[in-house]
């Protein structure tokens, strides 16, 4: 299990290859979130709660690992200032079969969205606005 919280950009392809090296599992799922250009946005600023972040993510990853018997799991999440098109975060899961790898990755994403202490702010030419949590993200948790 690897959990990294960092300001630095990362190479999602290199991460996926390193994650898959020497696996016994047959199924690897990855999710990468990129800064999407939502209109006049020029950058995204991500704030987090350092003392809590790794601990909260680690607990989520441990739960997913146990529940879907993952051979490996990876979460990378950035904070600080990010440009449009840059990767924000990445999740990878490795399991014996595809259903477990997919479900674990979706579970991790749903929990990271609403339970990991990150807050996104969109920086536009005309000002800044905090991204509001979506009811659909909170609802997504009820399926687990």
């Amino acid at each position, binding site marked *: 299990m690897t959990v990294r919280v960092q300001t630095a950009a990362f190479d999602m392809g290199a991460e996926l290859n390193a994650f898959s090296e020497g696996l016994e599992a047959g199924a690897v799922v990855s999710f990468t979130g990129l800064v999407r250009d939502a209109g006049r946005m020029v950058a995204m600023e991500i704030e987090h709660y350092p003392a809590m972040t790794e601990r909260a993510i680690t607990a989520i990853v441990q739960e997913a690992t146990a529940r879907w018997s993952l051979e490996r799991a990876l979460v990378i999440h950035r904070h600080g200032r990010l440009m449009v098109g840059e990767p924000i975060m990445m999740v990878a899961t490795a399991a014996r079969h595809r259903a477990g790898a997919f479900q674990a990755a979706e579970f991790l994403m749903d929990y990271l*969205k609403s339970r990991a202490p990150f807050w996104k702010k969109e920086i536009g030419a005309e000002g800044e606005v905090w991204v509001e949590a979506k009811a659909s993200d909170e609802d997504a948790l009820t399926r687990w």
Partner: protein
Amino acid sequence: MIDILYFAWVRERIGLPRERVQTDAATVADLVAELRGREERYALAFADTSALRVAVDQDLADFDAPLAGVREVAFFPPMTGG
């Protein structure tokens, strides 16, 4: 003494990221009531607690969580990670 941390727009409204307070509040809700009484900016930040989340000693908690023995309380809007 309890460390209180603020994040995102809660931090911006109150104007500081953290402060240390002396309090006899028994629960998070009591602490919120105390802070609201301090100044207008606190009253504004805590106007609607349904729009806020709280962590007690770095674990998500409810507003009725007790504060006995607690060292750190954090207030913030719903998280938007991922």
